[in-house]
């Protein structure tokens, strides 16, 4: 008895301090030493680990003045045990384009958050926001005021435009076919009101990837996925291809054979690409970045409709505009987006994402409403069923209806 060491109050979580991967438990614990919210979070989490259910209550509706989104309200179901997380709201801070920061900027956020919140963050949330994890209602306004004074604003939550996000793009990547950072910033600014004040049927997400590698997974999780592509021929530096070959790359089997369009050939000296068949898959460019580059006539493909499974199964975005120049002031894009929002606002049901609405009314109808031409690029294949809603027919008398 005398030798008994002090028993940890979080024996289960302690197990997750072990192992080589950096430990989120350590992160919480370190904060717990000085921050009561972090301390009670640790306690409540240990309880969840013990009984295998969450101890957060349903919902929570809090916010800052004049905004309808940006804060996720959260209350403990055991406030008696864990009074410091009785309130534990999350604030979503709109990250800068491409998640580029300076240490100075980050420190400013840290200072505010240490003072008013749990000191815990997610760098970042899946949508892209800088997520501040856990504060109480009375701190929301102070935090907001302080952060805005440093140039930060809230991100989206609820039925709003969600915080747009983008890949490193031209800042740090040679593949970028348009300026993802600029477009992201521009759209975010342009549509501020829609980001903060719910007026959509449901959430709307933009994600911008500079090329078909899609490093922000836009095709999987953005209502509008803007993916850089090119129109003309892949730029080839034959000498550099030969270098790769000399250095052991098997151009035939690693490049040509894996080209999904089967449009490449290699005679040991020259790499030939039948560009008119090229699928813009990026594989050859990825594999031989010193030798191959996207073409020079660049822009983006606009895809629409990705979402998670609720309500009727997950969707990926699908092609809406095969190619669009992507240059400021982005008028063509913005006009299109506003038309879509109008349509969605008019016909969308409560909690119906644009991808679901398109399925419900039919892509053909949707295009017609947007006055967009149907294009074969939009489909993996044309319809296989013969259930066609022909629209024009002749009247008995021989007159077109």
């Amino acid at each position, binding site marked *: 008895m005398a030798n008994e060491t002090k028993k940890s109050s979080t024996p289960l979580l302690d197990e997750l301090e072990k192992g080589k991967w950096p430990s989120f438990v350590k992160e919480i614990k370190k904060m717990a030493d000085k921050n009561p919210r972090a301390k009670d979070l640790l306690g409540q989490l240990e309880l969840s680990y013990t009984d295998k259910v969450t101890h957060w209550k349903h919902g929570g*509706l809090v916010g800052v003045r004049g905004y*309808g989104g940006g804060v996720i*309200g959260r*209350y403990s179901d055991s406030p008696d045990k864990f009074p410091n997380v009785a309130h534990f709201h999350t604030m979503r801070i709109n990250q800068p384009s491409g998640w580029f920061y300076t240490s100075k900027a980050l420190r400013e956020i840290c200072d505010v958050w240490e003072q008013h919140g749990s000191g815990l963050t997610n760098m970042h949330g899946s949508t892209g926001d800088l997520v501040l994890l856990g504060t109480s209602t009375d701190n929301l306004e102070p935090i907001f005021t302080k952060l805005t004074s440093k140039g930060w604003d809230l991100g989206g939550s609820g039925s709003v435009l969600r915080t747009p996000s983008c890949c490193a793009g031209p800042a740090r990547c040679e593949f970028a076919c348009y300026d993802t950072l600029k477009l992201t910033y521009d759209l975010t600014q342009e549509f501020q*009101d829609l980001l903060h*004040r*719910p007026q959509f*049927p449901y959430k709307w997400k933009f994600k911008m990837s500079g090329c078909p590698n899609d490093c922000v997974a836009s095709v999987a999780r953005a209502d509008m996925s803007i993916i850089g592509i090119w129109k003309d021929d892949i730029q080839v530096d034959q000498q550099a291809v030969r270098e790769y070959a000399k250095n052991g790359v098997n151009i035939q089997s690693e490049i040509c054979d894996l080209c999904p369009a089967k449009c490449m050939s290699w005679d040991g000296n020259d790499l030939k690409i039948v560009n008119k068949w090229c699928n813009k898959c990026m594989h050859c460019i990825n594999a031989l970045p010193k030798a191959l580059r996207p073409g020079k006539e660049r822009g983006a493909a606009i895809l629409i409709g990705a979402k998670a499974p609720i309500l009727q199964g997950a969707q990926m975005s699908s092609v809406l505009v095969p190619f669009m120049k992507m240059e400021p002031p982005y008028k063509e894009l913005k006009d299109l987006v506003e038309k879509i929002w109008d349509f969605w606002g008019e016909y969308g049901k*409560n909690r119906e994402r644009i991808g679901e609405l398109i399925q419900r009314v039919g892509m053909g109808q949707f295009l017609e409403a947007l006055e967009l031409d149907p294009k074969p690029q939009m489909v993996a294949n044309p319809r296989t069923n013969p259930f066609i809603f022909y629209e024009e027919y002749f009247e008995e008398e021989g007159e077109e209806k």
Partner: protein
Amino acid sequence: MAKVNLGGIEIEVDEDGFIVDPSVWNEKVAQALASTEDVPSMSEEHWKVVKYLRDYYQKYNIAPMIRKMCKDTQVDLKHMYELFPTGPAKGACKIAGLPKPTGCV
């Protein structure tokens, strides 16, 4: 859940301050709720919105979508936030005594 004094009666509210039992709602309660939502005094316009919400809810058992609410009340969204600085969902619905909006947050 906590009880608070709203318009002179002890009323049960949830953490977000929404009243739990819609049937206890009356105009006084509304006025009291308003003061918690940055609405110092209820103007005619405030009442128009709040009554619209109540009517809609009583008829359909749901809160209207925001676009519809603005259209039907002829209050545009900007002005709606001027009337209800905490927003139509948190502010107006609370004052109107509707259940707390759920879902998409």
